[in-house]
């Protein structure tokens, strides 16, 4: 084991400036932007990434005669928890063909919310799979749309084949308190995962 890692950055007053991010994933129209807007201190901002064959080495266009340019919108919000500690929420692009953007968004993410609509549960399979494979802590927020039947969290857990440790929270993405609960459950889950990693289970006698 290597204990030799040392801080290489210069020590300065910005050492305390910490920015963290939580991703908000889920199918198209499930309420990702609404959720971001419910807790963000700023109006959800929209940033665009222009994608072109020139700009993205991952786009292998060999043999493709037609070059296209497209933009992907990402919505995000900001929560200042205290001076120097800022939490950013990023709504992930819904379309599957922008998976490579998820990789950038997911790098360094503290965790993720997978927002689910019980009428279209299959829409969030891809997101659940993505975070499971990468070991990113996530919670499932079941957005209780008006008119949709409410399912008990256990039914959603079974349908999504989630491990017992993954929190499943019923929520209303329009509601600030409800959205806070979902975010807290993600961070608590990330904390538990971190504690588990740090203290390996003692081997049975």
């Amino acid at each position, binding site marked *: 084991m290597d204990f030799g890692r040392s801080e290489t950055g210069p020590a300065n007053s910005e050492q305390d400036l910490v920015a963290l991010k939580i991703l908000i994933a889920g199918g198209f129209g499930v309420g990702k932007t609404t959720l971001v807007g419910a807790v963000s201190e700023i109006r959800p901002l929209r940033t665009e990434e*222009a994608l072109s064959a020139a700009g993205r080495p991952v786009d292998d266009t060999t043999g493709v005669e037609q070059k296209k340019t497209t933009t992907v919108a990402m919505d995000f919000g900001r929560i200042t928890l205290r001076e120097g500690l800022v939490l950013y929420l990023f709504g992930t692009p819904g379309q599957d063909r922008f998976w490579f953007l998820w990789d950038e968004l997911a790098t360094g993410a503290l965790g993720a919310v997978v927002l689910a609509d019980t009428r279209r549960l299959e829409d969030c399979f891809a997101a659940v799979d993505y975070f499971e494979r990468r070991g990113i802590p996530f919670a499932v927020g079941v957005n209780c749309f008006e008119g949709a039947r409410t399912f008990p969290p256990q039914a959603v857990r079974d349908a999504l084949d989630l491990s017992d440790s993954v929190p499943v929270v019923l929520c209303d993405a329009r509601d600030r308190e409800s959205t806070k609960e979902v975010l807290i459950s993600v961070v608590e889950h990330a904390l538990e995962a971190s504690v588990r990693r740090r203290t390996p289970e003692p081997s049975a006698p």
Partner: protein
Amino acid sequence: MPAHGDRGANGGQWYDDEAGPVVRPYAMTRGRTRSAAEDKLDLIALVVIEPRAVNGDLEGSSELALAPEHQHIIELCMVEPMSVAELAADTNLPVGVVRVLLGDLLDAELVRVRRPVPPAQLPDERILREVINGLRAL
């Protein structure tokens, strides 16, 4: 390589028909789509203004002709440190363009970048607890 790169003859045309449509925003970056600094420029990397940019002491950076977009970024960062994502939203430019422009400002030492907590160091349990308490207190 196309052999007919008649750059000087027709007033500095640097692309040909094979290049396909030029992405208009990248005109602001003089066609550059990558920045040497882009590894540092995560979406939530915070851009902090250097004192010399605030003081208007731009001597020595004369090699960088500041475009209005550069100025806009500097002005935004003067108020408070801004994430790359916020700068993109506020300047209404694609993230890739903002990264190139920030690369220029970094080279000119007008801004510095506070990188997010590296993934290898995540999660810091003390910070996670602070986040939980902070969310509860909202």
